[in-house]
């Protein structure tokens, strides 16, 4: 109930709503309106409905849509478009827990290789290229894409979604792994050379995944790479898996996989079959 004996002039209320009053006068009027039911009822209609709706909509959206993951918010500050941020937020492998797990594993294998004083590069060479590959495989989403039947039929399309997620995973994992690679003992070029198989395995994964799904494709690639690295670790030089001839083989395989994806998307009538 109002306990005041005077009421604010309508012009004064209007000036307040339109933000034309100075801070002192505004504060004084706010105190009065807090206590005066009559002035509150007068000021309500002066506030434009769209302004109120916009404020309310903003509050509701904040509560209803939930917060985007920290990494996506950071990326948005660096210029990532807002809609792309929403798409990436749904990507399992961009979650902080997954990234932390990947990084901790990388740190351990780097440490193992350092402690072995360059004699055993294989732990690093085994794990570093697999981190981005598994990241991309996981980024297809939990249990692949739970609403894949729908994603396929949207104008954005599943293939583009997978490419955006793949780029995001590579952007996040490759620099960290490259920095750790610099701390390795042995020849400096190894720090960069492992990027060869890592990058080659991405088109291989996408091509295999178009046939078998991402889970099986990632498992097959991981097994293949593990076998190769462990085979080399027995008798061959520790840098063998990333030496020149092998790099040419990786590049060839990557190009073949890319060509396979391209032909498959052109030839087959099946919509969205490639990727």
């Amino acid at each position, binding site marked *: 109930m109002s306990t005041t004996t005077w009421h604010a002039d309508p012009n004064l209320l209007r000036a307040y709503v339109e933000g034309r009053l100075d801070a002192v006068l505004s504060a004084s009027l706010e105190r009065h309106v807090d206590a005066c039911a009559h002035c509150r009822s007068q000021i309500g209609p002066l506030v434009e409905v769209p302004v109120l709706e916009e404020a309310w909509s903003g509050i509701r959206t904040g509560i209803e*849509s939930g917060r985007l993951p920290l990494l996506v918010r950071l990326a948005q500050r660096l210029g990532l478009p*807002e809609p792309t941020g929403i798409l990436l937020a749904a990507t399992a492998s961009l979650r902080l827990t997954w990234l932390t797990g990947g990084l901790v594993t990388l740190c351990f294998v780097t440490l193992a290789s350092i402690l072995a004083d360059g004699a055993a590069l294989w732990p690093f060479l085994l794990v570093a290229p697999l981190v981005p590959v598994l990241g991309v495989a996981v980024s297809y989403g939990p249990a692949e894409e739970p609403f894949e*039947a729908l994603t396929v039929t949207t104008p954005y399309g599943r293939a583009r979604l997978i490419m955006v997620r793949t780029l995001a995973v590579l952007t996040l994992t490759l620099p960290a792994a490259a920095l750790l690679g610099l701390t390795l003992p042995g020849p400096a070029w190894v720090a960069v050379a492992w990027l060869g198989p890592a990058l080659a395995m991405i088109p291989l994964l996408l091509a295999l995944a178009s046939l078998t799904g991402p889970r099986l494709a990632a498992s097959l690639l991981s097994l293949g790479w593990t076998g190769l690295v462990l085979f080399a670790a027995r008798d061959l030089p520790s840098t063998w898996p990333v030496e020149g001839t092998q790099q040419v083989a990786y590049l060839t395989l990557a190009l073949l996989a890319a060509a396979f994806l391209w032909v498959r998307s052109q030839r087959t009538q099946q919509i969205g079959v490639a990727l």
Partner: protein
Amino acid sequence: MNVQLTGVAKSYGGTPALQDIDLEIGTGVTGLLGPNGAGKTTLLRIIATSIAPDRGKVRLLGHDPHRGHAELVAARRGLGYLPQELGYPADMSTFGFVEYLAVLKEWNDRRARQQEVRRVLGLVDLADLAGKRVSKLSGGQRRRVGLAQALLGDPALLVLDEPTTGLDPAQRATLRRTLSVAARQSSVLLSTHQTEDVAAVCDRVIVLVGGRVAHDGDVAGFVASARDRVWLHDRPVADAVATWRDPAGGVRSVGGTPPTGAQAAPPTVEDAYLLLVGPAAVEGAA
């Protein structure tokens, strides 16, 4: 015509799912009936650009989705689709899920997108549950979330695979109203096992049996095809396609030779469907 199919066929591992389908669909609500395995979902997936037919031509909203990426995307821009089974991410809110799909449907302006998400959630009576996780919703509520995303942007072609599954009678009534409004400007194509949905909301009914169109026409004509073939009596008709207890008393028999004293009953969509499909319908409904 929003949908034009010519000679469309599709098989899975040698088993034909659809054969020689010729269809034209304009505005209004078209109901798709048929026993399980008749090819309803396959047909809807082809129209929703989820899969391609093995043979035949498809034109959607004036575009040929198999002629290249630009045509495909142009067709998809006018499409809303609810698949028969839709997985839901465990950790997304209802609002977040629909907003995610809105982004995939190119709603890039944030304010317009969020207004649209709120509008479609309102259409399916889920505005108050927008902040709740999809995983915490009931089956019927999740089905409505699926419907909400299909309604994003008032698509010119709405393809709904069993939209009324899991909805209670009041929710079904709301959905029918929503679809009737949408169908004034759009083509709504829905599959269902509920023949009363067809009677209540559809202008046209297509019955698929064994991958072929067994009936295509308006609902009134379909119902009329069962006239004088539905009987009320105190006991079942021996050679009827189906019989069941009538709520008004007595036994309702569809088809067969009426015994003396049997009274002809006004037919329904269900009667016409049972007569057309025969024993396959009775088995399919099991």
